[in-house]
């Protein structure tokens, strides 16, 4: 009781030895007491939890507390450990098991000093439990785990590396024995855990047993008679094994062995569903002519297991192994047979269970059924392999990326299983992020097509909950924009479109319902595409994607806000999948607003509304994102023309006339404007910049005159106006303005040629009243000098007809986007035509316009000899 009085609170160090002693009393079974198994099972977790929460074994704070307390704590820990060790040496396997588990915990929790002084004793104690006299499986598994923890801790002390390697070396053979001779899978898994710790932390200890370890693991994998989880653990160990030697050759050899083994298994499995030539080709790539075949994986041949079952487990484990080899670190640079692995991926993805004509007579339906049932797993693993290649090689994959694009896009057309599609989307995201805009050019058409299909189709829940909504859900947006152009003057909201007969997008809807997880993947991919490739040739698909993303976001939020908080009664996925969908759709929407475009985002006001609502109503994660979105959009809505601090201050301080003139020019745009709306907007934006000017008061008066209060609301009204009437003229005007650009450019060029006077483009003035947004973007420039609507029409015909011609001449053009307007639907998959660029600058020449071809050399793989001769 006196002791109790001394304790201040739960943080008092004096509490710890006391608690530890009572734990020993309460939970650890006495010497000759039988263990109540039931109780200990329930009690152990709470025991461990108390130990860890209060750091009862840590013996910390040795300086700040008085030595008496230190001694008390030390003796308490001593007692604890001696108790454990006596449990460990008990004959009863239950007691032993408890002792081993708790010793593992003690390895993690005890102080460094104590660990270093006693790890070898513990290791030897634990070792005795995985060696022959031990026969309880449970004890073996627990010992493996505790030993793995001991090694993990030991690896943190570089000063005992040598001793560690020595001790770890003692473990290798017992572990191999467990793998080879024990017949219980759980023990194999325990052994795999320990093996992993050995390879990962003490690779030198494995060095002598390299081949034996390889053989032991390989035999387990090739037999394929374990659960996936155990196989994966073993596969991981095999992948890390070359680290034990750490040189270039062992890595390459291991990779080659694994690939050959995969290939052999595939040859067997794909008999009948694949042309013979394929397997021969793979073989030829695997073993280059003139080279010897390496020993099979694991040393001896493990062929001929069972012919009724496909060796899917083995193949997939070996592929998993390849993945891990590609993505784990390795001490030296190695040569990766990229081409070979890509060929393997392509080979696997090509087999879809259909029978080639030549094979028809040799296959039974049972065989086909067997293959078809296993194929999804194999496809999934080959996609994993592709992912690992991209992750591991990054930009070194560039010479192969065109090939990958071909494989991926081809597979995209056929892949319809949700899980595979999600993987495929993630591959595309990785490609886009690692290869940049260059690959976006090639991938965009397929991504846009597939993502549009996935997002446009109904998901299961939609059908169940709202059958009436099939109209808007299936109505493809491109169609909507068609209508906009036809009925330019009609005003109506998006909802009003629903009465229109919206035909089911039959050909694009390959699947009736698309799971939400696939939609999430599609949204994420569109987001990345917009981030990386919005600047690239996006004219053909941009407007339809913007619309699609807006629609998806609205649909995702119309049933209220999902909750990311997990529900204890449901598996995590199902509880939060809807919220994930909302988050993804909002993220994609934000990206579509922020991605570079020529026009102000048409759905901005709806989007803002959504974000505002989400910020107020949604759960934490969504609300946080909505707040972020509003924050990010602020710069778009009210562009901040922040000065470069140093630069402007320098300009101000200097008395140089040039810099004053320069400043004047920058700001003159706003002063000269006669449209009150525009100038008001600019003034409010530039207020911060100009606040130090001494004519602040003058401008304040000016603002007063123009009724600043009102003008501040104008932008909002204008946007609402525009978006609530999607059919009105403002939208078409944007198009008109774009069409006129070539004319403007031409005019500029001509004028400049004649007398080198810089002429202001004249089409700006005209566009101001029709499309405020475009005008406001350009209004910083000087006022216009004249209008010529007639001329612009004449001029604008040229680009139109030019692009028409392009349409006709390019037979291989791949038009994936519904016709939005005359020239936007040219979505050249691989072609280099750029209708808009064509319009943008008159002297831009394109490969596809035949007139220009002769003016420029084609792509010739030059014969270097002739060139150097001519030099």
């Amino acid at each position, binding site marked *: 009781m006196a002791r109790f009085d001394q304790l201040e609170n739960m943080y008092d160090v004096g509490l710890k030895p006391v608690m530890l002693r009572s734990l020993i009393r309460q939970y650890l079974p006495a010497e000759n007491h039988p263990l109540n198994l039931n109780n200990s099972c329930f009690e152990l*977790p709470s025991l461990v*939890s108390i130990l860890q929460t209060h750091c009862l074994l840590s013996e910390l704070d040795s300086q700040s507390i008085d030595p008496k307390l230190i001694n008390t704590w030390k003796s308490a820990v001593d007692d604890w450990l001696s108790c454990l060790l006596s449990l460990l040496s008990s*004959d009863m396997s239950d007691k032993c098991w408890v002792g081993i588990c708790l010793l*593992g*915990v003690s390895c*993690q929790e005890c102080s460094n000093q104590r660990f270093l002084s006693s790890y070898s004793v513990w290791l030897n104690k634990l070792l005795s439990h995985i060696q022959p006299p031990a026969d309880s*499986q*449970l004890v073996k598994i627990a010992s493996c*785990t505790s030993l793995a923890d001991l090694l993990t801790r030991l*690896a943190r002390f570089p000063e005992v590396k040598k001793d560690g390697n020595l001790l770890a070396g003692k473990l290798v053979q017992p572990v191999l024995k467990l793998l080879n001779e024990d017949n219980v*899978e*759980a023990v194999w898994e325990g052994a795999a*855990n320990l093996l992993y*710790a050995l390879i990962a932390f003490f690779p030198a200890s494995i060095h002598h047993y390299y081949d034996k370890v390889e053989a032991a693991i390989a035999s387990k994998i090739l037999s394929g008679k374990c659960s996936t989880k*155990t196989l994966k653990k073993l596969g991981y160990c095999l992948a890390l094994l070359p680290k034990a030697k750490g040189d270039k050759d062992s890595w390459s050899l291991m990779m080659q062995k694994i690939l050959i083994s995969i290939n052999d298994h595939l040859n067997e499995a794909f008999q009948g569903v694949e042309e013979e030539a394929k397997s021969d080709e793979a073989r*030829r790539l695997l073993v280059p002519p003139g080279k010897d075949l390496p020993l099979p994986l694991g040393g001896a041949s493990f062929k001929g297991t069972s012919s009724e079952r496909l060796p899917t487990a083995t193949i997939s484990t070996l592929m998993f192994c390849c993945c891990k080899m590609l993505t*784990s*670190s*390795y001490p030296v*640079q190695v*040569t990766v*047979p*990229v081409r*070979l692995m890509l060929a393997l991926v392509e080979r696997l993805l090509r087999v879809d269970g259909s029978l080639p004509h030549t094979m028809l007579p040799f296959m039974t339906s049972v065989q086909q059924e067997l293959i078809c049932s296993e194929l999804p797993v194999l496809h999934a693993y080959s996609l994993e392999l592709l992912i690992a290649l991209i992750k*591991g*090689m990054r*930009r070194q994959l560039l010479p*192969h990326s*065109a090939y990958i694009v071909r494989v991926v896009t081809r597979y995209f057309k056929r892949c319809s299983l949700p899980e595979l599609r999600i993987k495929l989307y993630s591959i595309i995201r990785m490609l886009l992020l690692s290869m*940049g*805009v*260059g*690959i976006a050019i*090639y991938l965009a058409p397929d991504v846009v097509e597939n993502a549009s299909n996935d997002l446009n189709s109904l998901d299961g829940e939609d059908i169940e909950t709202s059958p009436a909504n099939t109209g808007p859900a299936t109505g493809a947006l491109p169609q909507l924009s068609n209508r906009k152009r036809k009925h330019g003057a009609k005003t109506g909201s998006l909802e009003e479109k629903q009465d229109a007969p919206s035909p089911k997008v039959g050909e694009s809807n390959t699947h009736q319902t698309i799971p939400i997880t696939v939609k999430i993947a599609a949204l994420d991919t569109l987001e990345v595409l*917009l981030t990386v490739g919005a*600047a690239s040739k996006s004219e053909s698909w941009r407007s339809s994607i913007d619309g699609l993303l807006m629609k998806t976001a609205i649909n995702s939020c119309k049933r209220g806000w999902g909750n990311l908080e997990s529900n204890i009664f449901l598996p995590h996925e199902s509880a939060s999948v809807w919220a994930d969908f909302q988050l993804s759709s909002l993220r994609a929407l934000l990206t579509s607003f922020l991605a*570079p475009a*020529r026009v102000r985002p048409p759905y901005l006001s709806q989007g803002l509304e959504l974000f505002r609502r989400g910020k107020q109503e949604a759960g934490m994660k969504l609300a946080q994102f909505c707040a972020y979105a509003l924050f990010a959009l602020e710069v778009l809505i009210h*562009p901040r023309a922040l000065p470069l601090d140093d*630069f402007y201050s*320098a300009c101000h301080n*200097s008395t140089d006339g040039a810099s004053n003139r*320069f400043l004047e020019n*920058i700001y003159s745009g706003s002063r000269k404007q006669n449209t009150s709306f525009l100038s008001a907007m600019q003034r409010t934006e530039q207020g911060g910049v100009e606040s130090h000017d001494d004519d602040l008061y003058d401008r304040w008066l000016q603002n007063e005159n123009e009724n600043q209060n009102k003008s501040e609301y104008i932008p909002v009204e204008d946007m609402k106006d525009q978006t609530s009437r999607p059919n009105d003229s403002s939208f078409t005007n944007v198009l008109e303005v774009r069409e006129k650009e070539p004319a403007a450019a031409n005019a500029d060029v001509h004028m400049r040629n004649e007398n080198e006077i*810089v002429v202001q483009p004249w089409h700006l003035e005209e566009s101001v009243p029709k499309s405020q947004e475009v005008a406001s973007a350009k209004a*910083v*420039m000087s006022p216009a000098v004249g209008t010529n609507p007639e001329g612009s029409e004449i001029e604008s015909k040229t680009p139109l007809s030019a692009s028409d011609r392009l349409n006709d001449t390019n037979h291989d053009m791949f038009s994936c986007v519904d016709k939005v307007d005359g020239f936007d639907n040219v979505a050249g998959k*691989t072609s280099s035509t*750029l209708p808009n660029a064509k319009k943008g600058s008159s002297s*831009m*020449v394109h490969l596809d316009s035949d007139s220009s071809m002769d003016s*420029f*050399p084609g*792509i010739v*793989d*030059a014969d*270097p000899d002739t*060139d*150097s001769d*001519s030099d």
Partner: protein
Amino acid sequence: MEMGEKMNKEALVVCSDKSTCIGITVWDLETGEQLLHIPTCAAAPHGLFCLRNQFIVASQSNRHGSFGGGSIFIWPLNKPQSPLRSYTLEAMGPISCTKDGLYIAGGAPSGNAYLWEVTSGRLLRTWHAHHKSLKCMVFSDDDSLLLFGCTDGIISVWSMISLVDVEDSGSSPSLLYYSSEHRSSITGLVTMSAGARSIFISSSLDGTCKVWELVSGRHLQTLVYPMSVTAIALHPLERLLFSGSVDGNIFVNVLDIGAVEDCFITTEDQAFVLKVHNESITALTFSGFHLISASEDFTFCLWDTINRVVLRRFNNRKGAVTNMVVIKQSSLFPISNHQRVTHQFQVSLLQKYPQPSNPGKGMATFLSFPASRSKPPPTHFLGNNLLDHLISARRTNTCYAANEIGEKHRRSTMGNKHDKACNGDKQAFAMSFAGYDAVPVAMQPV
């Protein structure tokens, strides 16, 4: 501490194109000291760059041997005595490398272009890109596009992916587009990294700089100067463009590419001018926020662009500087002094001829493991999870008391009823252990 400071300090590498005896000089910009001199190098304009902060690469403008080929030298910065001398079919003019240092591109006066893989030295592609001599080349910010500027004013943009395509099925043209808006030789190309909207700027002897959209090739803006522009550089914050002209003046413009499109800007009254050089500017670059300008008048200057004063003026005496590259001083330290680099980036001799593709061997690529250079990741204990598994599995088993298999178990000391059940449990548990990977552990979190 001094060491740490030195690590972050920058140095300037300069070289000339006139005579090989001038060589490469590395200067400390702060002190004006000469840090290193490498003899025998004369590189054409845009023919010098720093590879991965470890190597200086320069194309040699003089011919080698009787065959009239060219050469590219690669000096490890921390061991400059032993350069890697690669010989090429033609004399190389401009050369450039990707940001990740994996590929090197070179252009010849004949208009031919070459593309190498650095780690293997393989000549991936050679092709006739232009009719006239190539003046400068640059990779886009994400390294996926390659831009050429030619003496006839033509700019061409190529897709790296189809250029280096090993299969080369010919399905995708490598040339994205080209433009002949400039009326005279291109003198500089710079790409901007600003966000998703990739943009590049070209300068030309016709007295203009043009702003372009990189992928579409759309021409956005023209800046008109009173003189031929011989060199350009972008301020690191990418709002200011510095254009050196043929009379030695450097014009400074504010770039406003956000909103303005299709416009001409005369720069005479909008830009301010940095005046110190008497003759044509040959190169511009940045060290931090300080501009460095080099001129035909044999000098190069370090500028404070805020106050527009010259901080330091260097005199190269022997010849005009044509190439300048800013490097980290730390890369000059010998390896022993440097952090221990177990994973030196591999550079091979650049091959002279393209290799016929060998399906077995040629397709392999070098893999550098980025993880191995960083610290080992924090390790986690297996036990925490596994203990919970063991406990929950064991508990489940005691509840179900499935003991059909375990009867053969023995142990004389434990003959009681409890022990039998216990052994059975273990067996059953062991058999079913693998099934527990998905079971949420309903105990307290560990």
